[in-house]
């Protein structure tokens, strides 16, 4: 069927767009890294909010709630740390592009409904988490100067990997409306 292939392509494109924010291998300060980290988490919370509005699938709703809760917890940790360090997260080209690109993804998600939405959401979550894991592991952690910021990013990686595993499990099981 063409539809699932199209949705998967859109998800992969979203991930590519995310990663493209980093293709120039930008050099980021700790303040900019903090901003990117917070924005990346906020984006997944916003995707989860759309899923909670639009999906009736029990698995999707449970997953979306977990994303909202966990990414809120990560933002809280990051906010506490930057406050402690006296660092103000600094908007930068990367964080701005992430936000801009997320708007396109949200528009795509809002245009879907039913099973098509469920599949688009999960496919996007798989692609997005893969991209975020890659960015955190390969760019943000190596570039972080402050030890505590680096440790927080490292502490968050297992959660991102678990989220990815969870999303892949739902993707593998297939999504259908359950009550």
């Amino acid at each position, binding site marked *: 069927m063409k539809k699932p292939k199209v949705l998967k392509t859109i998800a992969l494109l979203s991930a590519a767009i995310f990663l493209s924010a980093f293709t120039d291998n930008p050099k980021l300060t700790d303040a900019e890294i903090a901003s990117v980290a917070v924005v990346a988490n906020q984006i997944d919370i916003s995707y989860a909010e759309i899923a909670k509005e639009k999906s009736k699938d029990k698995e999707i709703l*449970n997953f979306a709630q*977990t994303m909202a*809760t*966990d990414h809120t*917890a*990560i933002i809280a*940790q990051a906010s506490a740390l930057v406050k402690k360090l006296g660092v103000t997260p600094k908007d930068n080209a990367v964080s701005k592009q992430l936000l801009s690109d997320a708007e396109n993804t949200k528009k795509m998600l809002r245009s879907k409904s039913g099973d098509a939405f469920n599949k688009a959401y999960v496919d996007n979550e798989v692609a997005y988490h893969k991209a975020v894991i890659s960015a955190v592991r390969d760019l943000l952690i190596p570039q972080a100067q402050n030890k505590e910021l680096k440790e927080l990013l490292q*502490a968050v990686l*297992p*959660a991102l*990997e*678990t989220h990815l*595993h*969870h999303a892949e*499990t739902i993707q593998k099981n297939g999504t259908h409306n359950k009550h």
Partner: protein
Amino acid sequence: MKITLLFLVILLCSSCTGKDDKMPAAQKISLEITPGEQLLQKAISSPGPGVVKVEIKGMVFEPKDISVNKGDTVLWINKDIFVHDVTEIHSKKWSSQQIEPGTAWAMIVNEPAEYYCSIHVVMKGSIQLN
């Protein structure tokens, strides 16, 4: 010296036999630890015979698989930055409900079980009886 500690009540699992019996929800209570309860606090901080500790950290149960004696207490301590729970996986026979970061939940074990975190469904563990 009184120590205030947020602690979850140890639940008895001896009646976990029928599908119709649901475990009561874990209750969070705040305890002032008196000298007489220091032994319990010691079991929490340094598990001895009869108490087996499982740490929840980095999105895993550590150790993932444990072997205990019937009647032992298993103590799950959430050292992660996320809320987790421990829930019997097949029939949801028992569940801790939410375990906040920095808090713990304990259960006396009388039968083997496989469990998971119902929030992060890929996190799994098991309890075998010796």
